[in-house]
């Protein structure tokens, strides 16, 4: 089973890395902050799978922190930093 967990975790890491193209491309600031969304869910899933795959329960806490931080990053971005539609 642990081969499956690590395999799917690798696959999820790949979808994250490919998704980063969208941050680089933009074009609007809104498109860039979608990365927080991507990490919040995909990163959490990858960490939970790793936790099971290498049987290390503390990794679930890392997943929990990741979930919280992604939400914070999105909120901070729209509240503070977003200047408008320009590049």
């Amino acid at each position: 089973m642990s081969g499956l967990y690590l395999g799917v975790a690798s696959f999820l890491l790949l979808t994250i890395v490919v998704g980063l193209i969208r941050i680089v491309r933009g074009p609007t600031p809104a498109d860039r902050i979608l990365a927080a969304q991507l990490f919040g869910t995909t990163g959490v899933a990858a960490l939970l799978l790793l936790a099971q795959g290498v049987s290390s329960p503390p990794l679930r806490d890392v997943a929990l922190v990741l979930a919280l931080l992604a939400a914070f990053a999105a909120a901070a971005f729209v509240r503070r930093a977003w200047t408008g539609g320009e590049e």
Partner: protein
Amino acid sequence: MSAEWFGWIFDILLALALPVLAWRVLITRNLYQAVILFVAFGLLMALAWVRLEAPDVALAEAAIGAGITGVLFLDALGYLRDRRRGGEADERG
């Protein structure tokens, strides 16, 4: 297909993505984009600490490296923008 094999794939992906991302953070002109890439780098770095069997460091990296630093950077950018706008208003007035 053993777990070890997939572990290798995961590590190689990380090892390729991290330097590319670090390079992009450094060369990106648009500061907002650079901050978001920096946060992304921090999160991937947290995954790297996980693979190095240091979940406590991973936790600190995610919370401090990506989270708090990222939010502070975003706030600083917002502050810079406000000041720049304030300056323009002063010149006009």
